[in-house]
């Protein structure tokens, strides 16, 4: 399955609740993603929390956009990526 890097902007800053409501939110996101066969691998968040760089495994960029809509998350740019590591050329 292709891997994508999804850039998102949060002009007002992303709020990340660390209590049970955050957990619930996370589970809802995972369930929504599951509908389209999308897996959220992990995200990098900028220090000011205005941008996130999220790594996803998904069948297509459309699936990424569809789940973003369902989760009410913005999308700036989707890039298909692969891992570059010291064994890339083997």
């Amino acid at each position, binding site marked *: 399955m*292709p891997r*994508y890097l999804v850039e*998102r*902007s*949060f*002009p007002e800053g992303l709020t990340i609740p660390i209590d049970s409501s955050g957990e619930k939110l996370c589970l809802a996101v995972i*369930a929504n993603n599951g509908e389209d*066969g999308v897996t959220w691998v992990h995200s990098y968040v900028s220090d000011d929390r205005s941008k996130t760089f999220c790594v996803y495994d998904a*069948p*297509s*960029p*459309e699936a990424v*956009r*569809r789940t*973003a*809509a*369902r989760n*009410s*998350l*913005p*999308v*700036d*740019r*989707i*890039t*298909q990526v692969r891992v570059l590591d010291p064994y890339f050329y083997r």
Partner: protein
Amino acid sequence: MADATELLERESQLSELTGSLESARSGEGRIALVYGEAGIGKTALLTQFTRLHAREARLFWGACDPLSTPRPLAPLLDIAWTQGGQLAGRIAAGASREAIFQAFFEELRLPKPSAIVVIEDLHWADEATLDLVKFLGRRAQRTSALLVLTWRDDGMRADHPLRASIGELPRQVVARIPLRGLSPAAVESLGARVHRNTEGLHAATNGNPFFVTEVLASDAPGVPPTVRDAVLARAARLPPPARELCELASVVPSRVELSLLETAAGGTFAALDELLGSGILSLDQGAVAFRHELARRAIEDTLPPLRGRELHARILAALHVRGEDPAQLARLVHHAAGAGDAVSVLRLAPSAGEHASRLGAHREAEAHFSMALRHAADLPPQRRAQLLEARAYECYLTDRMQDGIDSCSAARALWARIGDRAREGNCLCWLSRMAWYTARTEEAHRYGDLAIETLEALPPGPELAMAWVTRAGLYASANDGPKAIPSAEKALRLARTLGNREIEAHALNMLGTAHIQLGDEEGWTLIEESLRLSLEHGLQDAAGRAYANLGTLAVEEHRHQLAARVLDEGIAYATERDLRTRITCMYCWRARLRAETGRWTEAVEDAAHIVDNPGCSALFRLAALTPLGLLRTRRGDPGAREALDEALALARENGELERMVPVFAARAELLWLCGDARGAAAEASAVIEKARKTGRPWYVADLAVWIWRGGGEPPPPDECARPVALQLRGDWRAAAEEFERLGCPYQAALACYESDDPEAIRSALEVLDGLEARPGAARLRRRLSELGVRGIPRGPRAARREHPFDLTAREQEVLNALSLGLSNGEIAARLFVSPKTVDHHVSAILTKLEVPSRGAAVAKARKNHLLEPEEARAK
């Protein structure tokens, strides 16, 4: 399927269901989706839920069945059977699907008390049931009913048709209730109740409630490795007569009526009490059922083959005693096949196929004809050829062209052997049509020619008329009007002489198509006439084809309003009748329409429907990949080139300009947006001469604009459709206005690229940002900076969330202002844009909300909570 002994850890799901029921009761109908792996407790949850609300709600409960070929509308038949009344009456009278759905809907609409409709096990649903789900789903909000849909999601394929049906349900009324396994604590408490040690049980069962209770109910030491082993361990303890009865019941999917079981079982029926006492089966409303379908399958799968056949034969005989109700045909076929009784299969399956086909369950019809064919080795060749033709036709309707071609070729060979030239010619026509859908255009022409050659040697009949229709269709697809028209006219004359309305409708359609392609307005009237005739006489294939051609041509000619109306109507018509081939075709063209008119989210949904379905015909894959590739191009998403490369390979094979031009135009746009202007010109030039030969202004225009932008030698502006002709003459402003008038916001904005008026480019940039057209917006930004403009807005002002009606952020702002009763001038002042820009936004809003006036737009916005803060709306 499991009975609800006690429910653990399902409080939150119960309260969610109760909440949905409350909304339904207040007049806002709801849909709850309950899904999880087999044995997770879907039925148990719903049994408990409906028991709690039995007094305040009317309950309708139906399930899909796991027959090799499901009965069409099985759940609704269940419901009618238990309810009686008008619904049962209509079904018994053989009413159309639409009438049956409508009768059920009317029943649900009765205001008090609220209705709870449970449709279980949709992973086994037949086509007609999925359409029922869509039908009810679209209307649910207007009732005071709660519709509960359940399915197993383990092992469900990505292209399972249920996914698409669920995806089409209106999101705002849907509650998703996934079920997961029990916690270790819950498993332990279940064990404690029967004084059993539950060590390792949670890990082995993943907390699956059915598995856990099966293990706890069997006295076997340790935990069996699979749920199947647990079931078998429990059944192994039954005394022989009960065991025998259990095996007999296991060959009947879902549930078996007591009377049926009694007839089939004879003496062993006396063991029923013992069997029920074991808890493996339970009794419910005059029928017995296994606690779970998993248990039934576990028992059935261990039957030795001969024993299985014998049991099926006993059930079949018992069913025969009750007479052959058409609604039971699928059941009879299932057991006849299980009994290896070829004679009964051959007698029953074709009728089951015809019955399913009449109900618009064409996939099931195809399965029944295939089943008959598997047992048809000893049939006379004529009968076998007829079955092959019947199967081929169902394949054609359901977009399984290669299977259709295989059947039709076999039928043709049989007719040739029998010496029936007319039937052989008829098969050749069908082979031609189906080959065309698989993008094998040359083969299609070869079959078409052969059909005419074969049939012209015979006295003129309907087969020959249809062969001329086929040939006219092939020429029309190649945009060769002068050749298409004489064939279509011959077909029309012969059809009228023969009094054959169906062929007349097809011929009118082809004639109209050819005339439109030649720029002759009269063509539209001819296709409308074909459509009217088809609808009037209930000619489904002809009507589907008329809708599809009218829609296609309207999109090509940029008559967007006509296209939207025809395609929406056509998709509804074809969906109602399960004409998969037509539905697919119209989805492709609606995707393109929506790509042109700025409704990108919806366009992608339409295209993804097709592209995600690996089984669809090559031609449809091509027709869907093109708008998908174009939209990825315009949004700057990955995979644009890949989609367009695949489309190009298919388009080359097909060779028809109707498909080549959009692929080459999209590829040119991709290159231009990547900064390769010359490459864009070269790409578009590759087919420009062929496009000019057709004389179709939009074909020429779609390519010419990239040749011109890329600095190549474009064709004369006169050959291009109006907005591009204006562009080529250097009048970008008039071009943009013309695109705007046609409802093409993206192209209107991009036309401003050639402008040197910073204000115009700024407005255009706003449109592209609103559409999230990142690459195009980047080009406009570069253009602004070339013009020395400072303070260029850096990007979409705020991260846009997907809007329920696909309004851009700016359009939403204008809508908010409209709700305050402001005039265009006042809105313009408030938003720092020109009144003309506001005017454009307002017309876009009216289109997207599908309303005639500003007042109606505000009313609709209020109703749909569009004027509330975005956070609240996003939910």
